[in-house]
């Protein structure tokens, strides 16, 4: 039988699962950095494998926290902040794609200028993000129909 959720228990559970997630991520990251430090002194690859294992366990803990939480881990204002930040990031990415890809194509084809590989990779990676957004938007819209 499921426990009845009240506003107060919602806050308690949100706090509890957030703490769990933060600790999982913290242990994973610290474990990975510690293992890397050990590897630098010992040069034993086992240390790196152990660090990666701890890191993945931390990721698993984070995923379990999100999966097991009976409440949303963000309240509506926090979601609004995330939405605003997403909008801002999306605008930057879309502008970079709209301005950057034609410029990169023309400049590199004509041999005028070839941007560093990291910049080109980022711009074309942004295009993939825009396409991913389009696919996600299509999928989400279907769930409202």
């Amino acid at each position, binding site marked *: 039988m499921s426990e009845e959720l*009240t*506003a*107060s228990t919602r*806050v308690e559970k949100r706090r509890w699962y957030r703490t769990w997630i933060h600790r999982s991520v913290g242990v994973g990251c610290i474990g990975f950095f510690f293992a890397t430090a050990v590897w630098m002194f010992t040069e034993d690859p086992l240390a790196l494998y152990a660090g990666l294992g701890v890191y993945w366990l931390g990721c698993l803990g984070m995923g379990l926290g999100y999966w097991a939480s009976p409440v949303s881990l963000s*309240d*509506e*204002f*926090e979601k*609004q902040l995330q939405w605003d930040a997403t909008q801002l990031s999306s605008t930057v990415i879309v502008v970079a794609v709209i301005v950057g890809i034609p410029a990169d194509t023309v400049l590199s084809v004509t041999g005028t200028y070839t941007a560093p590989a990291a910049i080109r990779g980022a711009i074309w990676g942004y295009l993939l993000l825009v396409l991913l957004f389009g696919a996600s938007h299509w999928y989400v819209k279907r769930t409202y129909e």
Partner: protein
Amino acid sequence: MNNEITTYREHEGLSQGELAESVGVSRQTVNAIERDRYDPSLELAFKLAVYFDCRIEDLFQPDIEPVGE
């Protein structure tokens, strides 16, 4: 949207954190609403009205454009 959350909250002798806990949101959410930086969802507006035992219109005075004409 103007609101009277601060007035109602202070009348009850509550801190922002206590009110937030009672309606299931963070203190930052209540703070943002009180400072007119954030308009709450319909669900949260109803919760606040239920909590203060008043009508939503008593808490919020929306600044909306004329409709239906």
